[in-house]
């Protein structure tokens, strides 16, 4: 996170080259907090400010898609952690006046982001 015009802003930087990578959707919804990356950096999950509410979102850098993840019951996230493969999300919330961690399945929302070097194959099909 860096300060940009007085507001916390997420910065995505490639560790080896130092290159700053573009994030297309997030500049309108500052301040940002709690960034979390998937294995190969395809997904960046974070908490943004949308109006007077905090909202968990995921930017899919491969498809250039922003996925807002609203919570039921008007709950707001405080911190988050994305599983490396992008298939689960852990959120820290305030519920009934205390911290609470809840887990969510993202299997129907995001594709798997596998570790670098993992061989991907289509399922084997038996010959007719």
């Amino acid at each position, binding site marked *: 996170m860096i300060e940009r015009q007085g507001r916390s802003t997420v910065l995505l930087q490639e560790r080896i080259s130092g290159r700053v990578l573009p994030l297309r*959707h997030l500049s309108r919804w500052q301040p940002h907090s709690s960034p979390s990356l998937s294995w190969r950096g395809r997904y960046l999950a974070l908490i943004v400010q949308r109006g007077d509410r905090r909202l968990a979102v995921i930017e899919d850098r491969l498809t250039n898609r*922003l996925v807002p993840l609203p919570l*039921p019951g008007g709950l707001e996230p405080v*911190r988050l952690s994305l599983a490396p493969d992008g298939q689960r*999300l*852990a959120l820290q919330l305030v519920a009934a006046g205390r*911290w609470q961690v*809840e887990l*969510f399945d993202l299997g129907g*929302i995001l594709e798997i982001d596998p570790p670098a070097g993992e061989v991907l194959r289509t399922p084997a099909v038996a010959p007719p």
Partner: protein
Amino acid sequence: MTPLERHDHDIAKAIRLVQLGLALMAVSLLGACVSTPMRPLAAINQQLEQSGGNRDPSLGGRWLALIRGRDGRERIELVDLDQNRPVPLPGLNRPDAQPLNVSVDAAGERMALIRQRDGRTELALYRRSRENLQPLPLEPPGVPRQVKLSADGRVLAVQVSRGGLWQVDLIELP
């Protein structure tokens, strides 16, 4: 068709094309920003809720590390999400130490943590298979606040306060 009728026909066709273009643009914009309901993992959420207040979650594959409050004390726990139960962490939690932040790798083998003990805030690395907690000194010295371990457990990102400024240190681990 008279020239006037042909002119009207062309204009109507152009309007339809513009309308189609606007509709496609709207669909495309909606597609770029879709609000999607998440499915809660009910069994583990129920277990977490019953066990008291929890904070600072860190997900690594089938592992969830967090700080759990119980009976006025906080301790670090590691939950195996496949088995839906916490695993033992011998040598990690101490009665005289207050955990502040934790992060786990995808194998559930390494955990990086920040804790306060004897009035000092320290960074440490826990290796589960060795049941060993190793302090990690910061150079130059600073006060760590948050830590993130890479999924492969090889690199540590630490948010550190030095001279009133936040800095992020990257530490490569053997």
